[in-house]
């Protein structure tokens, strides 16, 4: 046991100490954080931005519509942003005023200018030029504000009094969209889909990354011939087990750090986004029961052990990185095939595909956690998946240990499948 521990310790510490690990562990959360913040900020651009009201209104009419548009925009103004400014100009002086306004936009004093002229009063056209001209909803907001103002103007001319007017036109229509899935309607639908996607993606990524890591570790020991020194001191099974446990622990460490960092970032999301001037709906973290968390952990550990053992077997049977890349193809195909189905299964988590993929041992470590995160799964499905996975793990470890023991000291040409089968049958 002391020797196994020495190997686990080495595998763990030597990896955790590398720059690669530190960078990935620190930048993972930064990356996730960016994923959380940036879309919201971009989305904000397609909502009304604070620049929306920081405009100059060039009113080339004498109707006073410019003032009323400004007043309407003012009501929509977010706190801290600049109020619109109104310039009443003669139609003949309009082009001069426009070029002046253009310069102010270029100097970033205002974000744009709006031209109100005869055609506007006729309800035909308004013109806007500014930095945010591509922000769809800024433009939509401007159009509807002006339209509303003009409409009010017309109604007023028809003799509707202003109190009645506001009563009639005030309509803060909000669209509440709710999703209906096979499971029925649920407000938290989006949240659990995002959560499930993250779980599946994380599992997939860490199995691929750390599986490759096991392979590279085995290959290093083989090519530098350290393996021979080590297996003269401990049985090769101990070395294999130590490696899988050590590397698995590194992966787990990284995930724990990522999960904690993500939770903290979700908590910080609101204040950060407010800084960017984005109002957000409070985003509920999914409720994860202890049982679910444990189950996810078990699936990760089993899945990792399954793939890491096979990766180790591949690593011990090849002589170079190039050979390894070829030999690892079958494993990668299993993993990539699983990853390809993540999306369809997210969309239809109760379909045949989801059921089958969550029970097959090679895809269960990723797909069953995905189903579990999406909602309740019958206990017997979980039990079948677990049993199949445990069994496959045992077979994979047994096979890997035998291939590993022979392959580790075998140099020269890459073995054929038949030769590897013979290695498995070697007695000792």
């Amino acid at each position, binding site marked *: 046991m*002391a*020797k196994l521990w*020495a*190997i686990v310790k*080495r595998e763990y*510490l*030597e990896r955790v100490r*590398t720059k690669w690990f530190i960078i990935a562990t620190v930048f993972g959360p930064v990356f996730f954080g960016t994923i959380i913040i940036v879309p919201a900020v971009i989305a904000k651009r397609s909502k009304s931005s604070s620049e929306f009201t920081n405009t100059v209104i060039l009113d080339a009419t004498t109707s006073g519509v410019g003032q009323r548009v400004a007043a309407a925009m003012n009501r929509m103004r977010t706190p801290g942003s600049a109020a619109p400014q109104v310039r009443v100009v003669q139609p003949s002086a309009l082009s001069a005023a426009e070029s002046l306004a253009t310069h102010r936009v270029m100097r970033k004093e205002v974000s744009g200018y709006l031209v109100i002229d005869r055609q506007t009063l006729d309800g035909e056209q308004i013109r806007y030029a500014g930095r945010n001209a591509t922000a769809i909803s800024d433009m939509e907001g401007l159009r509807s504000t002006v339209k509303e103002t003009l409409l009010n103007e017309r109604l007023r001319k028809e003799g509707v009094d202003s109190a009645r007017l506001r009563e009639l036109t005030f309509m803060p229509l909000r669209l509440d969209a709710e999703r209906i899935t096979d499971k029925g309607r649920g407000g938290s639908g989006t949240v659990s889909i995002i959560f499930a996607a993250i779980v599946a993606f994380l599992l997939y990524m860490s199995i691929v990354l750390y599986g490759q890591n096991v392979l590279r570790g085995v290959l*290093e*020991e083989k*090519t*530098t*011939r*350290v393996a*021979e*020194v*080590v*297996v*003269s*001191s*401990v049985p090769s099974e101990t070395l294999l087990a130590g490696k899988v446990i050590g590397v698995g622990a590194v992966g787990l460490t990284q995930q724990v750090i990522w999960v904690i960092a993500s939770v903290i970032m979700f908590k910080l999301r609101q204040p950060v986004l407010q800084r960017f001037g984005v109002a957000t709906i409070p985003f509920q973290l999914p409720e994860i029961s202890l049982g679910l968390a444990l189950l996810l952990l078990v699936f990760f550990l089993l899945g990792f052990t399954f793939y890491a053992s096979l990766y180790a077997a591949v690593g011990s049977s090849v002589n170079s990185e190039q050979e390894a890349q070829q030999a690892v193809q079958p494993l990668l195909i299993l993993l990539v095939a699983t990853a390809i189905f993540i999306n369809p299964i997210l969309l239809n988590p109760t379909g045949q595909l989801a059921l089958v993929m969550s029970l097959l041992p090679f895809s269960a470590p990723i797909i069953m956690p995905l189903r579990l995160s999406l909602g309740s799964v019958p206990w017997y499905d979980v039990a079948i998946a677990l049993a199949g996975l445990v069994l496959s793990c045992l077979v994979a470890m047994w096979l890997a240990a035998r291939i590993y023991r022979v392959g580790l*000291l075998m140099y020269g040409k890459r073995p054929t499948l038949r*030769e590897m089968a*013979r290695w498995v049958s070697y*007695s*000792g």
Partner: protein
Amino acid sequence: MTDYCIEIENITKRFAQHVAVRNLSLHVPKGSVYGLLGPNGAGKTTTIRMMLDIIAPDEGTIRILGVPFNDKHIPNRIGYLPEERGLYRKMQVRRILRFLAELKGMKGAVADARITEWLERLDLKTAEKDWGLAKIDELSRGMQQKVQFIGTLLHDPDLVILDEPFSGLDPINSQALKDAVVDLKRRGKTVIFSTHLMDNAERLCDSVCIIARGEKVLDGPIARIKAEHGTRNIALSLDGETSESVAEVLADRSLVQRVDDSNRYFEIELAPGADSQRLLRRIVDSGATIQRFELVQPSLHQIFLERVGAAGIESGMAGHG
């Protein structure tokens, strides 16, 4: 029978296409220096790996230090230096040594003290520079070999197994290794090493075993082996260039069975029934200036060539030209 460190009885190891070791038995006395000699591919490394329980023999038994070779505690008492040397390249020297010590069941703290001792002893830790804190890649090849050697001996093993220890060593490190082997013997340890360099084996070993094509050719104490191979050998040194006429004499099969020509030094095996004095006279007559003409026991090298046979030097053929 516990005065043997290693007792190997009739082991056989087959691989897919060939038999690597066939029915091999050998006995290594405790506290001796033992040479496992043979040409490349003779089965030396396979034999060593079986002693270390890295691979298991298909037949036969191996006992080490009085217990079966796969006893759980045996590896802690063996130090092993494989033929192909290598260490984790990115790992710090001290950490790697500590790891190797832990694999031999040592406690970290005990190992640390010994590592310091060894690093100082082999000049890897001096007042200016402590290579113990460097990574393996930063070390020169010679230094890496020293580190590997420390790793082999750190846990003070009773049995030290060195596979081709002299290959790739410069003369200085080679001498240091010989000193270390002598030191180990003096401290009562058993040392086994494989080599195809007969000179080293002849000088260092108490006993040897010569194997070829997976089979034992001969074994026993060096003194006995040499005595058994008689004194029909002559050491001959000539002054100046070897003339045609001397070459002719040495090529005479009625006198010379075999000659190992090292240019200025010849080791000659007399033909059966030939008289050494007649050979001496013939050489004098040929006009050569003799520096040395001595009846000697055959060198291990000669015995090896004779028993194993080697391409290029066959019976009766002088190695001139």
